[in-house]
């Protein structure tokens, strides 16, 4: 099967009357074996899970009933990111202005720069206080480790944001090494702004 009989030296006659001892070829046709081998390889490739999935740790805060237990955030160090449909991202710094003029729309590619810039800004404006020593001690005396302690990112996905968007944003926190972030519900006002922007930009 793997070879074609070209009729080369098969008719080698020794002479009349000489009985030829029938020599059996030791060549084994390997083709079916190769077929089977590759069939199995294909099967194993298709069923294989090569990369084991990883896990991303997420820690959520406890519901605090008492207002004085709530964490306070410095307005100058807060970045609020909202997630809408169509992989769109919206953000504002500090508090939202009543006219919504600091509400900016962006996308997943550019939000990293925004986070990095804001983090750098917070670290530049860092004001040294007593809490810093504790953080230094925890990080083996690294004096830079306390500079970003005020920086807080608030992530607010609306009801049309996908799970992937939320995870990508949490991942962005890990990528930019944001130590404090919160995943909370969007307020109706913010959601209205998101919806209005989506309509204006014709986001599908």
């Amino acid at each position, binding site marked *: 099967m*793997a*070879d*074609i009989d*070209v009729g*080369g030296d098969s008719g080698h006659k020794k002479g009349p009357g000489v009985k030829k001892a029938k020599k059996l070829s030791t*060549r084994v046709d*390997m*083709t079916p*074996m*190769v077929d089977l*081998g*590759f069939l*199995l*390889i294909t099967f*194993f*490739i298709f*069923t*294989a*899970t*090569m*990369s*084991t*999935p*990883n*896990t*991303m*740790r*997420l*820690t*959520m*805060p*406890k*519901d605090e009933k008492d207002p004085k237990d709530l964490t306070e955030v410095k307005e100058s160090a807060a970045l609020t990111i909202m*997630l809408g449909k169509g992989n769109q991202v919206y953000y504002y710094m500090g508090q939202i202005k009543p006219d919504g003029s600091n509400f900016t729309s962006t996308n997943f590619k550019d939000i*990293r720069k925004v986070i*990095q810039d804001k*983090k750098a800004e917070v670290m530049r404006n860092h004001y040294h206080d007593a809490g810093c020593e504790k953080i230094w001690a925890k990080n083996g005396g690294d004096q830079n480790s306390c500079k970003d302690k005020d920086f807080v990112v608030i992530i607010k*996905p*609306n*009801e*049309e*944001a*996908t*799970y*992937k*968007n*939320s*995870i*990508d944003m*949490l*991942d962005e926190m*890990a*990528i*930019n*090494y944001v130590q404090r972030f919160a*995943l909370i*519900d969007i307020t109706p006002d913010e959601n209205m702004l998101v919806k209005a922007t989506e309509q204006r930009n014709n986001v599908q």
Partner: protein
Amino acid sequence: MPSVKIVRKSTWTDMTPFVDVAFLILSFFIMATKFKPPQPVDITTPTSVSSSKLKEQDAVLVELDKTGRVFFTVNTLKGGDNETKASVIRGVNQVRNLGLTDKEINAYVRNTTVGVPFSKLKSFLNLPDAERVKAFEGIPVTDSANNELTTWIASAVMAFQGKKLNFMIKGDNNAKFPAFKGIIEALRKNDQFKYQLITDPEGVPVGTDLYKRIQEGKNENES
């Protein structure tokens, strides 16, 4: 003029090295393969830079598919700790007054993936394993007044008392946020605040803070 004699060569090729390679690759795949566990539904997970490995034992797996259906599975140690699984379903049975028989409890222990509301749990457990997939309609989570996942998690926490229980959330890329929020709410109501989100690995972007930390060899996210 002598005619040019064409030398006829045999087309026979030696297949042996070919076979060698084929079987070498084959044995590699047999060794390296871990079979995909049977999945109720197809879920494509998002990617993340996280590098911690998945621990599947003594864990509760909450799955979220792209249409927002939620499934709940209890994984115990390899070999199966049936008593723990049984106490999960018994707890649910008691709290919700479902009136499950021993046969139905055994049916649950055999395959702990559940994806139906409590009202349909009894008939769901009487189905053969193969037909359960068709009956999946998801555990209701988006209604905060009747988040049935809360009961499941409460029961699992009770059953795993004294052991460390991991909560794994596996969501599909296209699932919407409210369902994810419903899952987190259900966990938070049971005072569980640490979860592991199952993701596919992805490279750390060059130049970012995390990248620098890894270069300096001080990334505490590893483990």
